């Protein structure tokens, strides 16, 4: 599903700390106290979850990954997998304008009332 103005962002309170020279980082999620270690790819994905649009995030990730993988599809798989894992861990959240799927046309709250 694609979203109008969808973007990923780090959940409030999540703390990220890189481990210099090791290519890993630790993420602490205080809402549900857990500590995760992230590899360098997932750290890079998390770094991109900074309120930019999904399209922009994908474009930036593809540029980062271009020389490292054999195909764009492989890079997209890494990105999808990374985003899913980060979301499942409560590290990032997907935010959309009014959480409305982009199916064309204009939808607003009034339409929910059945007119």
């Amino acid at each position: 599903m694609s979203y109008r103005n969808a973007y990923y962002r780090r959940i409030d309170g999540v703390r990220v700390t890189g481990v210099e020279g090791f290519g890993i980082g630790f993420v602490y999620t205080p809402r549900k106290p857990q500590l995760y270690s992230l590899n360098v790819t997932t750290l890079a994905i998390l770094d991109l979850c900074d309120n930019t649009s999904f399209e922009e995030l994908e474009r930036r990730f593809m540029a980062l990954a271009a020389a490292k993988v054999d195909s764009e599809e492989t890079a997209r798989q890494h990105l999808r997998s990374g985003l899913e894992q980060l979301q499942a861990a409560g590290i990032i959240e997907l935010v959309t304008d009014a959480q409305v799927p982009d199916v064309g046309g204009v939808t607003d709250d009034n339409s929910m009332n059945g007119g």
Partner: protein
Amino acid sequence: MFLAYQPKPRSLERPLKLTLSITEGCNLRCRYCYSDCDSCPRADEMTTERLLGLVGELVDLGNTHLFIEGGEPLLRPDLFEVLSATCPFMMTWLRTNATLIDRHTARAIRDIGVGTVCVDVLGARPESHDLLTGCPGSFERSLEGIANLKSLDVPIIMLLILNRHNHLELQAYLDLAAKLGVNDVGILRLYPLGRAKRRWSELALSHKEMYAAIERLDEPKGMRVMRSWHPRDGNCCWQNAAVGARGDSIGCPYLREYVNYGNIHHMSFRATWDHPLYQRLRSDDVERACPDCAASQHSRGGCRATAYAFRGRWTAPDPFCPQMGEGVNLRELPERLLPTN
């Protein structure tokens, strides 16, 4: 993972993990207590203000791991004030004997955001546990504490220090953990510190006895059992730090009688990280390493505390790993460690 990185020598700007002892007071009287705890906190323990200052420094340094222990931390009236400063910023482990955890305290521990409670249960039976704690009835009280935590889904690790009084009941210990709904168990080695040092001949096991105990275990399904013997004997100085109840920076709780990198009453914690001996212990400078342990732990030479205790050299291989033991008899302490009185 496909984005590459270049590993560098182990020169971290700060520790990854820090153990903070907040008191040397304890309501039990364990035979092997490394801190030689008394029933009352000591007069020169860190004040609340000092503890909060240290926690603030750790948060500013970017630390995300904090292990709080004692003594018995729940004896400190300001424990929850300290936890309220740590839990929002660092995954906080709380080590306790759980005898003081009633339902109200369990709820407070959960609500404040403690990540995991590590409970010392010293044996599988009241007889062995109470013998080791020196307090009749403490086994039942610890298990009640665990039940109170479990009822609120607080993650728990049960910890046991392997010694002569419990080595034959390890399987029963794992079964007890499973029965209590605890899926994480840590089997720890005995260190020649504090009262354990004075009772070494009573408590210590030989290599053969230790490995017989841990190798015969049939781990219940879904249980994770942590143990630090071959082939998982790690040298973790490079990432660890510890601060004792009086503010001494000691690198690791097991180095408490051998090093002091400075006291945080007089300097920042970060300044103690730069102590020359601390830097040396983080440098992986060891004479010889077990390849299996090095491969599994990404570090060489095994534990520095037991290497130094038994061999008197910071670069010595750890005798707890049979591959590096070179015939060291772990049941006998070197003379220089023996108590003088």
